[in-house]
């Protein structure tokens, strides 16, 4: 089921980067029934071998030292940087426009979702509101009752930013900023092999804990959204746990179509990981 078509992707969970590589070999590659698939050949297994030169690891300072970082996550990140420092080359990088990622994402994603969810209209797919007596009511009442509050919120946001009079101010502008973010990542990638950053600002919050503050929930995506917007591959690697035993992840972002390099950097990070 499509949500934001320019952002949706298969996101496998696995026990290791080498398992992720196996999944990539199976799921990736050209598919004549998928207009978004690429004819670029998949990387071969040999390309996963540990590189014979030090990796150039970009340290995304504005994320690694972000205000919203929990102490536990901050410590984990600093630990990883120290471990990488012996053996790899660390390069400070900045993505000045990354701070716009969340607003850009929530404009683009909700706009696309509002369109993708239009097909759930009460005419098909089972639920039609029993009290609807005309076509407009079939739409309004079925969708009002059939969608949950978060979905309705996103559809309304998306419809608003696409509406006449607001399209240029919101959606078009968001697309332009998206390109700027993607360009900044591409520029940074000319100098480094991978970019290191935390995956989330905090460890997992409890179910229902932020349900009354959707914006606070959306802010948890702050570190993972840039890669999504730029369309570059990224991987989150479990690094350590906090005092309560909750997992802390670190992410690596790579260049377009350089999944093999990204995963081999991931394998390196896994080797450096503190043993539990």
């Amino acid at each position, binding site marked *: *089921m*499509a949500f934001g078509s320019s952002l949706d992707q298969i996101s496998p969970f696995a026990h290791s980067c080498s398992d992720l590589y196996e999944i990539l070999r199976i799921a990736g590659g050209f598919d*004549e*029934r*998928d*207009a*978004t698939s690429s004819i670029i050949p998949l990387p071969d297994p040999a390309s996963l071998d540990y590189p014979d030169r030090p990796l150039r690891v970009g340290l995304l300072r504005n994320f690694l030292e972000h205000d919203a970082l929990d102490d536990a996550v901050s410590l984990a990140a600093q630990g990883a940087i120290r471990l990488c420092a012996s053996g790899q080359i660390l390069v400070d990088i900045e993505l000045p426009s990354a701070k716009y990622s969340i607003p850009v994402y929530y404009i683009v994603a909700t706009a696309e979702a*509002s*369109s993708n*969810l*239009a*097909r759930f*209209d009460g*005419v*098909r797919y089972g639920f039609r509101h029993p009290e609807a007596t005309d*076509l407009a009511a079939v*739409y309004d009442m079925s969708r009002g009752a059939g969608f949950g509050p978060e979905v309705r919120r996103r559809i309304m946001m998306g419809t608003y930013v*696409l509406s006449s009079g607001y399209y240029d101010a919101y959606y078009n502008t968001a697309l332009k900023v998206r390109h700027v973010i993607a360009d900044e990542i591409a520029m940074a990638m000319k100098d480094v092999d991978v970019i290191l950053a935390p995956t989330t600002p905090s460890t997992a919050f409890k179910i229902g804990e932020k349900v009354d503050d959707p914006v606070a929930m959306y802010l948890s995506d702050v570190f993972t959204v840039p890669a999504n917007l730029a369309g570059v591959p990224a991987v989150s690697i479990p690094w350590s746990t906090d005092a309560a035993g909750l997992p802390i992840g670190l992410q690596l972002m790579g260049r377009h179509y350089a999944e093999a390099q990204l995963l081999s950097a991931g394998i390196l990070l896994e080797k450096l990981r503190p043993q539990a």
Partner: protein
Amino acid sequence: MMSAYEIVAGLEIHAQIVTRTKAFCRCPNQYGAAPNTLVCPVCLGMPGALPILNREVVAQAARLARALGATIHNQSRFDRKNYFYPDLPKGYQISQFYQPFATGGRLRIDANAGERYISITRAHLEEDAGKSMHLPDGSTVVDMNRCGVPLIEIVSEPEFRSPDEAGAYLSAMRELLRFIGVCDGNMEEGHCAATRMSLCAGAVRLSSASALR
């Protein structure tokens, strides 16, 4: 009074393109089959189904563009026209708005007033919707066979000065489309046009659109 106004009209013609299969899926592009038999998850807009552009649709559009002397653009894009109607299963129509397939070109017509060339503004690709049928008992049913049938929309500049010229243009376009094999021009099976009509009196311009089949 009416004599102070001159008619300045253009026409948008939607022509169903002759291809073996539909615009974005492998369903047969055929008229007259039993309802909802020429359908698949793609043209039904089922969750997860995605369109694949039919190469022959592009080839046919290219033939038409050449025949009109239009400029074919190396890059053109598809856009979504979002609206709610039961015969539009995805809730949007795949069309082209910002970057159409072709622009420019012209068509020669023979009207009462003599031979003229009507300029073409643009030609773009889009998909057709299904067909709603209102039954005597007050209910409505939908046949999705026509969903996803490829259409080419040809927009003329507002250059017609009389209904006769508009009629001549329609005949000429239909003849051209049939001759180059892009559309079979069967009115009862295909589309005709939406008019775009302006009435001009000096600097004042009123605009309205209406459809005729």
